[in-house]
């Protein structure tokens, strides 16, 4: 506390001082937030409705989007994307399609209602009933036949010209949601668990079953195939998206296992396989010439593929949540996408950049963002004025502060939180939007709790009745409390800055959220490996220290050699030697065992010195007292020296353990499934190493914090004999 602070604290009664502190913080954060906003900080979005399907008219002038609120949104691209809303469905519109001429729009609601609209007038012409809730629907390219998958597993087929139900196939218990019609409307394909089944539309006969199989056909299960080290062709999990190529030579299926398989519908063989999403594939669409395909996924990514071959050509990243609709644009070098974030995006394929974003609801977005930003800036500046007024003890400052402090949080927290929480995206994305606000709320919480626990009082305004020593104690407590608050504040601000920097890395937060639990599952292994290794190291270090202190030259030599060798070579190299060397003498260890040996032996050497120092710190008097009781050397060591030495070495061992937890990442070289290995595995697979490594780093940090506090408690327990 410097003197100028004290003068402020003394300038008024207690509540004002508290207010002052709170406002100072609000002002600081407001300015920080405003600055961050100007620099392109947190994303502000309006309340929108998820878009569940997307289709482009043949002429390329009209985009139709089925929305979760039961409407169909029509965007007129030529007319500055002017939006028209078609209302009528009482359930989410899960599928939209246009006929060849672009005059009739078909929309399918989840409740099984199928509506045919006249695009020109926006009027519903006809309403059909699928006979129950449906999960997916598809229209033949010529607009003749509509297929829908009902919730009960039946595939129903309609002739659109007449509106007559052609037939119903099934129900089939494995059929859930994916369906596709060949472009001439003669074949219908639907998901059949991890495989696909194809029927003839006219006869309703099953003509082909596409099922996953092992390259080595004698192996029939995934496990056997894995053991035989052969490729498993086809999906491991249920099929979630289907599409026929225009010429009908290829059937593409996307799956919850994140892969895409290209089948030959004639033979049932797998033509090509592809992976590139990190979550469920939601939509597949072929180009008209059949030489390209687009896929959308729950990972909020869109990918393009080249045929034949099924090679990925580009990534389109920008959607904040699941992509539900993809379409090739009217111009050959554009594509259209839409998804749960309520946006329709037009992309250029040359550089995968968005050239236009249309919202399923618009207007609020820009307004709220601007209001908030301006308010933050204004309140920050007003706060500065108020602080100055208070500093110079002008009474007008108090009123200003009160207004600011009451209104500040309401506006700062209320508006954006409402916005973030009503925004229809996954929790991960909501957090991404809301994090600065949640952080701010947490801050207010911290301050409020601290303020409630101890009134801001110091030596000078302690009640006059108290004795000098009590007043001094009160002053000491206040200083300590203030120091605690300010330390917390510093931590908090540095954390905010750190997060702001991390946000500039353009991290894929949804990806991080999706794989958080996968990486987290390695935390147990990390702790296990570190704990067992430290136990091994403690035993080795104890033996080593006894050897070093021993008068026997054999023991001394062995332990001296051990320490010298292990400390003289890098841990990384040692890990490799354990892993690669032992198998050559036909000792094949489990990776976990080898990792524990490598870490334990390495740390044992370092900790030998710690133990030696600990043992040597025990005074001569203790030895003499024990000897005078007639103890043998072994008894003396076990009963008197070691227990005392252990207490001395607990803090450094704790340090070593914390270091070990992080060095245990080296055993990821041996494919031990701990934090780093899991992080690297996912990171490499999806080219998101930075994201997953940051997750791992977070967990390491968390573990370290936890163990530091445990260590503190252990030390307090061990020191109980020294307490006075």
């Amino acid at each position: 506390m410097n003197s100028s602070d004290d003068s402020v604290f003394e300038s008024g009664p207690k509540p004002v001082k508290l207010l002052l502190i709170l406002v100072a913080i609000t002002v600081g954060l407001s300015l920080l937030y405003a600055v961050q906003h100007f620099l392109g900080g947190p994303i502000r979005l309006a309340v929108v409705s998820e878009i569940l399907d997307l289709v482009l008219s043949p002429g390329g002038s009209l985009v139709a989007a089925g929305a979760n609120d039961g409407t169909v949104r029509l965007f007129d691209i030529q007319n500055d994307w002017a939006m028209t809303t078609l209302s009528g469905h009482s359930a989410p519109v899960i599928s939209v399609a246009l006929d060849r001429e672009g005059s009739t729009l078909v929309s399918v609601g989840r409740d099984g209602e199928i509506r045919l609209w006249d695009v020109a007038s926006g009027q519903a012409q006809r309403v059909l009933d699928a006979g129950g809730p449906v999960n997916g629907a598809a229209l033949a390219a010529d607009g003749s036949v509509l297929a829908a998958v009902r919730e009960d597993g039946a595939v129903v087929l309609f002739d659109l010209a007449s509106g007559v139900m052609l037939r119903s196939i099934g129900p089939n218990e494995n059929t859930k949601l994916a369906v596709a019609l060949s472009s001439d409307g003669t074949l219908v394909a639907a998901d059949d668990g991890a495989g696909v089944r194809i029927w003839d539309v006219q006869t309703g006969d099953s003509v082909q079953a596409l099922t996953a199989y092992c390259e080595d056909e004698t192996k029939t299960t995934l496990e056997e195939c894995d053991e035989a080290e052969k490729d498993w062709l086809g999906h491991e999990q249920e099929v979630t998206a289907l599409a026929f190529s225009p010429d009908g030579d290829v059937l593409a299926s996307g799956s919850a296992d994140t892969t895409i398989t290209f089948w030959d519908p004639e033979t049932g063989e797998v033509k090509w396989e592809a992976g590139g999403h990190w979550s469920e594939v939601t939509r597949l669409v072929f180009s008209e010439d059949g030489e390209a395909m687009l896929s959308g996924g729950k990972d909020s990514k869109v990918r393009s593929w080249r045929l034949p071959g099924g090679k990925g050509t580009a990534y389109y990243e920008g959607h904040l949540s699941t992509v539900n609709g993809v379409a090739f644009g009217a111009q050959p070098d554009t594509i259209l996408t839409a998804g749960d974030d309520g946006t329709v995006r037009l992309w250029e394929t040359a550089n995968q950049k968005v050239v236009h974003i249309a919202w399923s609801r618009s207007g609020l977005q820009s307004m709220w963002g601007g209001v908030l930003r301006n308010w933050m800036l204004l309140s920050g500046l007003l706060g500065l004025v108020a602080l100055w007024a208070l500093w110079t003890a002008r009474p007008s400052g108090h009123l200003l502060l009160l207004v600011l402090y009451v209104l500040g949080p309401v506006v700062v927290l209320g508006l954006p939180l409402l916005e973030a929480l009503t925004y229809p995206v996954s929790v991960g994305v909501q957090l991404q939007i809301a994090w600065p606000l949640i952080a701010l709320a947490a801050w207010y919480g911290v301050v409020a709790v601290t303020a409630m626990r101890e009134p801001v009082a110091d030596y000078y305004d302690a009640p006059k009745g108290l004795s000098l020593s009590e007043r001094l104690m009160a002053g000491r407590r206040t200083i300590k409390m203030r120091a605690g608050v300010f330390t917390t504040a510093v931590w908090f601000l540095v954390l905010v800055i750190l997060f702001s920097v991390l946000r500039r890395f353009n991290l894929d937060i949804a990806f991080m959220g999706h794989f958080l639990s996968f990486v987290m599952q390695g935390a147990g292994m990390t702790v296990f490996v570190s704990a067992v290794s430290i136990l091994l190291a403690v035993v080795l270090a104890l033996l080593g220290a006894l050897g070093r202190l021993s008068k026997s030259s054999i023991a001394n030599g062995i332990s001296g050699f051990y320490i010298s060798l292990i400390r003289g070579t890098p841990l990384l190299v040692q890990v490799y030697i354990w892993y690669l060397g032992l198998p050559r003498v036909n000792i094949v260890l489990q990776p976990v065992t080898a990792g524990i040996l490598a870490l334990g032996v390495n740390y044992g050497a370092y900790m030998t010195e710690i133990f030696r120092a600990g043992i040597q710190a025990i005074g001569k008097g203790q030895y003499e007292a024990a000897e005078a009781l007639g103890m043998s050397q072994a008894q003396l060591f076990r009963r008197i020296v070691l227990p005392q030495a252990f207490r001395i070495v607990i803090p450094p061992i704790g340090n070593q353990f914390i270091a070990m937890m992080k060095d245990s990442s080296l055993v990821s070289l041996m494919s031990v499934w701990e934090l780093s290995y899991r992080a690297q595995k996912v990171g490499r697979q999806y080219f998101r190493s930075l994201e997953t490594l940051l997750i791992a780093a977070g967990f390491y940090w968390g573990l370290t914090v936890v163990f530091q506090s445990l260590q503190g408690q252990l030390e307090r327990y061990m020191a109980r004999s020294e307490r006075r």
Partner: protein
Amino acid sequence: MATLGQAGDTKPIIKVRGLHKYFGPLHVIKGVDLEVTPGEVVVIIGPSGGGKSTFLRCLNLLEEPSAGTIEVDDLEVNAAESLRMQRRRIRELRQKAGMVFQAFNLFPHMTTLGNIIEGPVTVKKLPKEQAIAKAEELLEWIGLSEKRDEFPSRLSGGQQQRVAIARALSMEPKIMLFDEPTSALDPELIGEVVEVMERLANEGMTMVVVTHEIHFARDVSDRVILMADGVWAEIGPPSQLFTNPKEERTRRFLAHIL
């Protein structure tokens, strides 16, 4: 027990013959002999560096004698033989000789009770319940029953030294050796330790005490030895040695401390 203790009556319980001790080239003890009969209290006084503590520590082999023999209760250790070969005998001898140190040397990681039962349980393999019962008697005897479960760091110096005495007594020694037991204590705490030592002497314990506590030497001891320059400068009953010393060396020493 008190009937045991008349000097010269019975067979000596401590016999030291021709004891020499060198620290490197330094000749600290220059060939001394001593016989102590059961129940006798011998006090060794003398100037610093005179070899008093070293002599006492030689008695239970905390220091290796350079030459001579030490016999306690018919157990003989001879410096001429390899001490490694006599290790077991030395441990036995130590169990017969309780030792109290200037710096108490309590085990800081054990409670008062733990300190007292450590010897009987670990060395004598006495069942724990028995050791605890005995320790509680000792605690009562030294007047520290209420400190049974305290750690040494919470005891005063005088209390610690009394616990150290109880710890030594828990081994049921034949003799007790005190190495300046009150030197590290504040003056007002000396009394409680001396009081315990007096009671011990009155109960007939054979004691060899190195001390500067002249009152203890005068009132409690049977014999006082003035040790200077590694030899006995004078031996005699306290009444004679303190009031009518024969040697000039004794007179000079007494003039310093009285």
